[in-house]
């Protein structure tokens, strides 16, 4: 819209420019590392070693990545419809109920696969329900979805605190959390998967939810690019006018898209609750909902980009923890900075370098650079 549509080869548009943006984000992050008196190169080496140097590191990296795949997909699906779902954090948090309640009720007499199935449905349904209200208000009453989803994050937080210090807390306990689940509420680890690659380690929290995340990625890909619904979502996201022309029901698509987005965010709750902590506790989401924004922007809203982006952030989380042992100046909060920088350079400033790259290409190959007047035209 704003920038003239200069034609660049696809690999520049979808490969080079995003890569440069990312590079800039990491260079700035490196400068912060330098500022606190550490060597960015050393920090990067430590981080990669911490994340991938051992089977254990890989396990943790993929465990974190599982969370980010779900929340990244959630943000991405909404992006395709032109919606900004900033409420993944709250949707995941409240969906913890959809995981914990089935576990608490069924764990004593049903095997994990059954409980898992119920919990998948439960978390998806509650996440979707939490996204429904902002979606409905956007579709029917024009309430800005960014603001309402932010508000719903805080409301979710209050609801969960209320429940965890009240109804969900076992009698006599002080900690604001549910009781620990029995066997039926424990998901199997994926240590065998790591062992296949020759790593023999003590247990990591990596569990079958990771496989579910991969399945979800495939499902999202198929949904967005291979179904009629996905077609309608993308049409609406790119051009509301074309959607109206094609007879697509705008309000309906907004609500459905947001509910899918909320369901994906909600399923993130499975990973820490059933896969690792085996109980519902306060603040288990720990910002994963927001990391999803960075992951979706970096992965260009495509599962093939989201999975590596999620693994990169998983690496940052795991490797960041490792760094802090050797570099006390660098804690996990470094990742929050990197996250912000990625969002800034891959999101808000994504077009900053485009003119420069365009000029560069123009000077190299004058004939390939035509400004498409038709596209740069009015509106």
């Amino acid at each position: 819209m704003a920038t003239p549509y200069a034609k660049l080869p696809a690999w520049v548009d979808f490969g080079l420019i995003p890569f440069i943006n990312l590079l800039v984000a990491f260079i700035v992050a490196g400068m912060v590392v330098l500022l606190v008196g550490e060597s960015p190169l050393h920090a990067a080496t430590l981080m990669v070693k911490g994340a991938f140097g051992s089977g254990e590191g890989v396990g943790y990296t993929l465990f974190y990545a599982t969370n980010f795949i779900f929340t990244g997909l959630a943000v991405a699906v909404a992006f395709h419809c032109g919606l900004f779902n900033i409420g993944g954090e709250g949707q995941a948090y409240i969906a913890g109920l959809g995981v914990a309640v089935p576990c608490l009720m069924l764990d004593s007499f049903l095997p994990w696969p059954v409980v898992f199935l119920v919990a998948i449905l439960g978390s998806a349904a509650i996440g979707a329900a939490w996204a429904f209200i902002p979606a409905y208000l956007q579709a029917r009453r024009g309430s800005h979805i960014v603001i309402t989803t932010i508000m719903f994050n805080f409301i979710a937080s209050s609801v969960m605190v209320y429940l965890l210090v009240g109804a969900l807390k076992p009698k006599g306990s002080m900690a604001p959390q549910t009781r620990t689940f029995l066997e039926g509420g424990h998901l199997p680890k994926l240590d065998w998967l790591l062992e296949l690659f020759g790593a023999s380690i003590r247990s990591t929290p990596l569990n079958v939810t990771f496989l579910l995340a991969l399945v979800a990625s495939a499902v999202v890909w198929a949904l967005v690019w291979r179904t009629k619904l996905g077609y309608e979502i993308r049409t609406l996201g790119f051009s509301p006018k074309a959607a109206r022309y094609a007879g697509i029901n705008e309000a309906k698509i907004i609500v459905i898209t947001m509910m899918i987005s909320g369901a994906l965010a909600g399923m993130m709750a499975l990973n820490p609750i059933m896969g690792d902590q085996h109980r519902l506790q306060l603040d288990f989401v720990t910002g994963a909902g927001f990391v999803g924004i960075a992951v979706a922007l970096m992965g260009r809203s495509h599962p093939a980009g989201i999975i590596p982006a999620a693994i990169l952030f998983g690496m940052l989380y795991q490797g960041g923890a490792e760094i802090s042992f050797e570099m006390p100046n660098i804690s996990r909060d470094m990742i929050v900075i990197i996250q912000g920088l990625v969002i800034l350079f891959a999101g808000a400033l994504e077009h900053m370098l485009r003119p420069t790259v365009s000029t560069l290409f123009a000077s190299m190959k004058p004939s390939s650079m035509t400004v498409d007047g038709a596209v740069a035209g009015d509106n």
Partner: protein
Amino acid sequence: MEFFGLIFGLNVFDSMLRVSAPLLLACLAGLYSERSGVFDIGLEGKMLAGAFAGASAGYVSGSAWIGLLAAIAASVFLALVHGFASITHRGNQIVSGVAINFIAAGSGVILGQAWFRQGGRTPSLPNEARFNAIDLPFATAISDVPFIGPIYSGLISGHSILVYFAFAMVPITWWILFRTRFGLRLRAVGENPAAVDTAGISVIWLRYRAVIICGALCGVAGAYLSMAQNAGFVKDMSAGRGFIALAALIFAKWRPLNAMFACLLFGYLDAVAIVLQGKEIPFVGHVPVQVFQALPYVLTVILLAGFIGKAIPPKAGGVPYVKER
């Protein structure tokens, strides 16, 4: 009756003022930015950056005022980043705001740890590096006068100077907005930037000025948190206040006087929640503290849904200005 004494007690109103001061500063900050057509969900981050910079500079220099200046500088820097992304490069204002929140949240802790090695906190500020409560003239003298006395000396007097600054900013903002040339242009550019452009005024420079003011006020709000309300910076100490301020701004329909009432209301809810903890409300029974915490957000959603009046944002808000034709 004991209940009413509780929720209408002087101490409740006193803490209402304390709690609402930073909200009010951030809310007015957002008002300048959004009135100019630049949406800002990065109030939270700017406040946090201000809190950290204020506490750090205040500790190192031993001067509250130097701390305040540092707080303003840090927050304005982030505001300029927001301006650079959303005004100069016409990027997505929401995305830029989200980014700033994260950058601020991470930087405070990382820099704090590197500089002071107290796990991301800043060291406790000595008294002279804080904005302490000040007694207004005659506060003790008239405290015995019935009715007026307690209100003046117990409620109005005895706050940090930043609290008075926050409330003074309400009429000042009103005056700037509705009585000065800058205010006229600011309101115009948020509604119809093309009208401003054809009148021969620079849309970009006008919006940058709005964003800078927004940064400065967020900086003061941050300084209040770490240098008046507390004696130092701790991780995530803004605790969502930037978002409550955003809610208050919507609730106030982008008007300064309304902003004050919205912030006082939200501040009051906060204060009342504390005194009511574990107590029964007549005819209602026990109301969990979380209800009060969630109320500002719930009220804002209801307002946004159009059930109590209609919150119409500045028309050009969120849309980068592109010269047309």
